[in-house]
């Protein structure tokens, strides 16, 4: 049977069989089982993350009431594991959103400048603000939001409907100016410009920094780590992240509609510009709240959605959920490796990149990287 025949083979039998069952209509696997398996993986990762590290914990000694073990568990391991799970979930889910909205399988949060803005913000705090983790976190958060704000503002100024901020009416009664000159293309271009600008600012800040301490701190922050997570640092950012994620899950149907060609989506009743702006802001909020605490973590947002789509073969709500769960699994695993692979703790991005770079190459070689098809 030729490829075309196979592709368009009448799927009646399989579809009928699976329609009323819990089986996935295409993979034949139960969707819920895939989700349950990923939850179990995440739970297993959490257990290992709570116990593994330079100071290994054991269940026996914890149950026996060892004060030191309990102290390490409560002050270090629980916040760190919580951040790994939530951060990974957030980056995975946000990656799904960026790839879908931009219809680009290689889209990532930094596409509109959030990571580079946060990096510049963190570097600014390391150089000019009183030395405290809270100041760096807050400054990184503000930097990320500022960068995205500038990018969306530029896209709006350049492209009318592109960000939904600019709906001009011609003074003539029967004339309406509605040309969608902007769209996702102008947002991406504006994002590239802001990314470059933030990188320049970062370079200038690095040049003016003290090479002994400040430069090392900046570089370490950029490489990302969950080393310095404490319970007191995360509640605000977790709340912001959870609120953003809730919004994204509620707006899932709109996210899918934004993946359709702009003019077609508009004729389906989607306020494309305003909706894209809202969804990008929510996704940015989610990403900024994570990386402001952890530093830049690469590839999770690229990797997790692709694995989820390979397993689910669609972009429904369960695929968004699975993207988040797999993001949590990946970051938890990378964090465990970062603190156990060498004598001293390594930046977590080393391990996420080790996992992500080969996958990126696979995408490019297999031809899924440049077609705009988010499969």
């Amino acid at each position: 049977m030729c490829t075309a025949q196979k592709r368009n083979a009448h799927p009646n039998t399989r579809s009928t069989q699976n329609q009323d069952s819990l089986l996935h209509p295409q993979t034949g696997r139960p969707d819920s089982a895939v989700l349950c398996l990923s939850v179990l993986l995440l739970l297993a990762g959490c257990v290992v993350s709570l116990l593994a590290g330079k100071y290994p914990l054991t269940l026996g000694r914890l149950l026996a009431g060892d004060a030191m073990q309990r102290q390490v568990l409560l002050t270090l391991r629980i916040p760190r594991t919580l951040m790994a799970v939530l951060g990974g979930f957030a980056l995975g889910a946000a990656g799904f959103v960026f790839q879908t909205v931009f219809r680009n399988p290689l889209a990532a949060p930094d596409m509109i400048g959030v990571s580079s803005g946060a990096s510049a913000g963190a570097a600014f705090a390391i150089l000019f603000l009183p030395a405290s983790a809270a100041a760096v976190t807050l400054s990184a958060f503000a930097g990320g939001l500022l960068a995205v704000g500038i990018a969306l503002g530029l896209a709006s100024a350049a492209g009318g409907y592109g960000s939904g901020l600019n709906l001009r009416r011609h003074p003539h009664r029967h004339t309406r100016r509605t040309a969608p000159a902007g769209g996702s293309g102008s947002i991406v271009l504006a994002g590239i410009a802001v990314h470059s600008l933030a990188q320049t600012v970062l370079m200038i800040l690095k040049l003016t920094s003290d090479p002994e301490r400040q430069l090392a701190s900046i570089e370490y922050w950029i490489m990302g780590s969950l080393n310095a997570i404490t319970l007191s640092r995360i509640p605000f950012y977790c709340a912001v992240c959870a609120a953003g994620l809730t919004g994204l899950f509620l707006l899932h149907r709109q996210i899918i509609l934004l993946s359709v060609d702009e003019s077609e989506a508009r004729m389906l009743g989607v306020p494309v510009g305003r909706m894209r702006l809202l969804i990008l802001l929510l996704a940015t909020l989610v990403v900024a709240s994570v990386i402001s605490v952890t530093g830049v973590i690469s590839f999770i947002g690229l990797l997790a959605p692709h694995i989820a789509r390979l397993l689910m073969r669609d972009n429904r709500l369960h695929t968004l959920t699975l993207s988040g769960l797999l993001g949590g699994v990946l970051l938890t695993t990378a964090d465990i490796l970062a603190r156990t692979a060498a004598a001293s703790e390594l930046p977590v991005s080393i391990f996420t990149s080790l996992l992500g770079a080969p996958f990126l190459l696979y995408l490019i070689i297999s031809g899924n990287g440049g077609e705009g098809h988010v499969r």
Partner: protein
Amino acid sequence: MSDRSSLFQENPRSIQVSAYGGSAPAAEAPVCLQVSSLSAGYGRAQILKNVSFCAKQGEITGLLGPNGCGKTTLLRALCRQLPFTGSCLLNGLSLEQMTSRQLARQISYIPQRSGIAISMPVTDVVLMGFNPVLGLLEQPSRAQKEKAHEALRAVGMEAYAEQDYQILSEGQKQLCILARTIVEDASLLLLDEPESSLDFPHRHRIMELLTGIIRGQDTTRADGGTLSEDTPGKQTVSSGKAALVTLHDPQLALESCSRLVLLKDGVCTAILHPAADSLPDMEASLSEIYGPIRLRALEENGRRSLILLPRG
């Protein structure tokens, strides 16, 4: 040469038999879309110049003309995606007065190729058609999902309901989009060269289904049979819908459209009624936009088909 001015007038003789079965609605069918002195373009380049025509309920109106004559520009202007001057009334309401959501409820737009770029089941593609009536956070109801399945059944795509839209052929994709149009239930359907990427059977199937939707025939028959099986000459109730279709194939346009708006260089050169106008009149008008052609009528089983041939 015939009196060309008569070609711009609405023809009263419109009880006719079309190639796709079912009689055309009565001449008194209400006007769905009234376009008056429409001019539109891109930036300073004016593509359409003072175009006027109407599309009536229960009729398919075709837009014919060579590449670059302004067919797609006209559709984009009606979708309010381009600035325009002039007046466009949809069921008596000005397009400019409508909100985007109202416009989406009133107009269903079918592009040459759908811009769906991600994998999703065919059912989800059809369910998108309910978006104009759904709240921001609202999900399609069970009844709407049932309607989506009925629409897929009507276009013969029910078996593909859970199939990935991306792996369908272009013809199957167009059928899915047509199913989406059925659930949208809009009063005006705008189709931009729906036949351009389709093979011979699919392009006729699409036009056949479109005729069924516009003429208010039962598009949700459980057997999923083709709509052309309807008895020729059977009176049908108008659905209250109208279609405006840009077509590259004049043969297909002559077979399937009740009315043809001919465009050349952004100007409306004639309005034809293929089943009622005389062959010399239509031949002259079509020759003006396509160059020298011959038009012949072929009678078969009580149906008149028009055949377009190059003059030579």
